């Protein structure tokens, strides 16, 4: 492992003068709660999603404790059912969906475009408040007794049979959806209208392309979820027959509607992760991402094809054989653009200058884990195998490899990568490397055994299980312990770095990109002068030349 010149790349002289920046521009609680600055709103989101992540994580850990033994001995069945439901609801609606777009995207996207803010700053603040209102519903649900339907709210269980807080939970998810829609709308308009002079579409960082694709999916899919949840609430409260056969409805219709949103929602969660990975790959190899246009268009292809595969969640739910064949085929197609990305990121490292800093370690972890998550998706898309593993722990393992091994690894990569820009301080590199290692090892130990136990026959959402599944479950719980430490460490050392971290300077990584052309932390208006872009994305020589020229002037 190399030890020299990892941290400091002396291309740009960091400014030593104490400047006004977005953090010290104004003081007081109200200056935060009423801010229209996208960077401060990003911080508000960072704090809120982190709280929900801790809540979801603690719940996950409690479940892993219960699953140490085959008997359901730690919690009652009802409590366990509420735990896995809340884990899913909290992690998906209140953490994974907003995490990268609303935190990292909010902060970085306008700066990457050379803009002073998003197109609609007030709408941006409104989206945070809507998120908080939706989140409050979630918190009320937890306090007042929970909900036990599973995050999928399948009917008729959710409308007829569950006597838990289904209405409040779906209301919370419904409201939070509008927060996503506003963020997506804001991003789309900003990307179209507010690019700096010279920043043409094919000079955009790949992060922007991927966030653009995400925003399109958010705008088109989330309203379907909203409508579906309204129908669910109408049936539950007013007893209008829509999904419940006892009232003349069709329960499989609910599954079609739900997955018409929720499969694209998988891409709402993973596309931003891919966005971060593309940036980090470029920055920590100091190289153009290999096949820029392929990577850019693969994001759009994922967004498009992602809408055509929802019924692969219904292969054993009673759809016709021919529908199953069509959706299985389309599922295979959607895997192609993801594969293209993995190959291109790998190829980028060829003859590169590969840094072993923490964000890059997370990138390597992401590529490895996302590959496993992706190929096991092929197992599930292959009809003959899906019939057996559907609704088993194999599925649980698969989507955690995508969501945790993919999205959360990417989120941590991005948080570490842009931390110096966000806070103006460096995080402690060796602690961060240790945590990246713990996350990787802990993650694999937690979730790889679940592939095996799923194929052997353990169904998901089981409070108690057959004794022969125990060994693999013990491994999984042991892994969860390591993973928990890996997640706790950053919360400690990142907090520590706010006060004690080394001052970062404008461009501590020697990366190419407009966000590294401004000070750390950036001024309230992001740039003292509107930048003019004369270089392609990740064109290091051109970027560095442009930087030297502006510094000399």
């Amino acid at each position, binding site marked *: *492992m190399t030890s*020299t*010149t990892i941290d400091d790349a002396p291309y740009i002289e960091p400014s030593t003068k104490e400047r006004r920046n977005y953090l010290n521009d104004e003081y007081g609680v109200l200056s935060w709660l009423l801010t229209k600055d996208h960077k401060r709103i990003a911080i508000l989101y960072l704090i809120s999603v982190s709280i929900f992540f801790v809540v979801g994580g603690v719940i996950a850990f409690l479940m892993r404790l219960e699953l140490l033994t085959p008997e359901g001995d730690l919690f009652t*069945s009802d409590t366990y*059912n509420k735990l896995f439901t809340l884990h899913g609801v909290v992690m998906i609606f209140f953490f994974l969906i907003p995490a990268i777009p609303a935190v990292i995207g909010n902060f970085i996207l306008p700066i990457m475009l050379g803009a002073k803010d998003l197109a609609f700053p007030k709408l941006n603040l409104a989206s945070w408040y809507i998120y908080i209102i939706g989140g409050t519903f979630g918190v009320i649900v937890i306090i007042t007794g929970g909900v036990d339907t*599973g995050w999928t709210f*399948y009917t008729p*269980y959710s409308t007829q*049979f*569950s006597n838990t807080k289904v209405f409040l939970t779906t209301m919370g998810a419904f409201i939070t959806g509008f927060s996503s829609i506003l963020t997506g709308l804001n991003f789309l308009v900003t990307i179209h209208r507010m690019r700096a002079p010279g920043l043409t579409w094919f000079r955009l960082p790949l992060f922007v392309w991927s966030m653009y694709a995400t925003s399109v999916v958010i705008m088109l899919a989330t309203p379907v979820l909203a409508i579906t949840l309204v129908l669910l609430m109408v049936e539950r409260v007013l007893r209008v027959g829509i999904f419940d*056969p*006892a009232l003349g409805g069709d*329960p*499989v219709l609910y599954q079609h509607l739900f997955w018409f949103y929720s499969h694209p929602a998988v891409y709402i969660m993973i596309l931003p992760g891919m966005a971060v990975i593309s940036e980090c790959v470029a920055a920590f190899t*100091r190289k153009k991402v*290999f096949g820029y246009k*392929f990577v850019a268009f693969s994001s759009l292809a994922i967004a498009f094809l992602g809408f055509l595969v929802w019924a692969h969640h219904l292969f*054993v739910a009673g759809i016709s*054989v021919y529908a199953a*064949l069509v959706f*299985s*085929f389309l*599922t*295979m197609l959607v*895997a*192609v653009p993801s594969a*293209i990305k993995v*190959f291109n990121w*790998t*190829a980028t*490292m*060829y*003859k590169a*200058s*590969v*840094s*072993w800093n923490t964000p890059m370690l997370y990138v390597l972890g992401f590529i*490895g884990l996302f590959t496993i998550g992706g*190929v*096991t998706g*092929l*197992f599930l898309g292959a*009809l*003959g195998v899906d*019939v*057996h593993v*559907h*609704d*088993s722990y194999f599925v649980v393992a698969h989507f955690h490899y995508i969501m945790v091994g993919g999205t959360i690894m990417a989120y941590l990569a991005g948080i570490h990568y842009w931390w110096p820009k966000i806070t103006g301080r460096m995080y402690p590199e060796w602690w961060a490397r240790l945590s990246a290692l713990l996350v990787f090892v802990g993650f694999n130990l937690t979730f790889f055994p679940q592939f095996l136990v799923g*194929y052997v*026959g353990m*169904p998901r*959402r*089981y*409070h*108690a*299980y057959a*004794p022969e599944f125990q*060994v693999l479950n013990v491994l999984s719980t042991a892994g969860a312990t390591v993973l928990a430490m890996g997640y706790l460490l950053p919360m400690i050392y990142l907090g520590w770095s706010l006060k004690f971290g080394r001052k970062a300077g404008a461009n501590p990584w*020697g990366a190419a990109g407009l966000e590294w052309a401004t000070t750390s932390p950036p001024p309230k208006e992001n740039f003292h002068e509107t930048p003019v872009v004369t270089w392609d994305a990740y064109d290091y020589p051109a970027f560095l030349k442009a930087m030297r020229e502006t510094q000399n002037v």
Partner: protein
Amino acid sequence: MTDFPLFPEQASSVAPLVDGLYLFLVAVTGAVSILIWLVIFYFAIKYRRRPDNELAQEQEPPAILEMTWTVIPLLVFIGIFIAGAWVFMRMNVVPANALEIYATGRQWMWKFQHPTGQREINELHVPVGRTVKLTVASEDVIHSLWFPSFRVKQDVLPNRYRAFWFQATKTGRFHIFCAEYCGTQHSGMIGSVVVMEPTDYQRWLAGGTEGSLASQGEKLFQKYACNTCHMDTAGARGPVLAGLYGKTRPLMDGANVLVDDNYIRESILNPQAKIAAGFQPIMPTFQGQVNEEDLIRLLSYVKSLPAPQSQQVQPVESAQSQATASGATGSQPVVIPPATSTTTNQ
């Protein structure tokens, strides 16, 4: 803790196919994944940042490379689709001469009904080597009937029958799990399938029974007074049921319907949905009165009725039957089952 399988038992005719496909996928995707990891590690170490390597050498990507790793994965994925579809199609064709067993899911138990009339709860006895066709429905929420050792699974819906099959290849006792979350005792909605030698199975069948499913259904047919309208003679208020199963019949609105399990189920629970051509929509619903198990008995009875010798089941002329029907309702007492609310399930 000593029993620690990493692979489930293969106990059905499709299990080797599914496992073959699974291991094929493990081999192909495993090889590609390991290759990717090795390349990544090799690059990460060989091209690590050093003082003489601060800035990467720019390489223009050869377009052929992009096409290669777009087209090859596409072909591989389509190959996986075809292999998966092939196994799936094999699973979807029920072999002839299957032993037809009905299963009902409810919170939180599995109930099985054999054609010979035996009922079981959370346990299913089947003979080895014989195809068993399972027709499933739920009394309440969605369940899913999974036989991991047979590699088959079917969601169990509250509003319609779904059928699937297996052929056990090994005697023994294997797990039955509910795979679709269904409430508090979801993880307790489990049972065993006991695969027996055919002779043992015959001995098991000889145990007590209240007569075959069809004969149980016949009693219900009279109990619910179905026979007052569905008589064996043409011209009755209801269609003649003998020999109806498996036929295609015209409906009042001009469409045709195949008389299968689901049509008979619907005709009992929601008779107004599809009216046979030439008949009046006068049948009351039996929703909430006939439970799932009785439905299966009735269904078995209807299926068991042989086609009459003179196969002509001519629907009466529409206008004529209208007159007869209204006249009949006026003069004769129509037997309507005793129920106050007939539209909602209790």
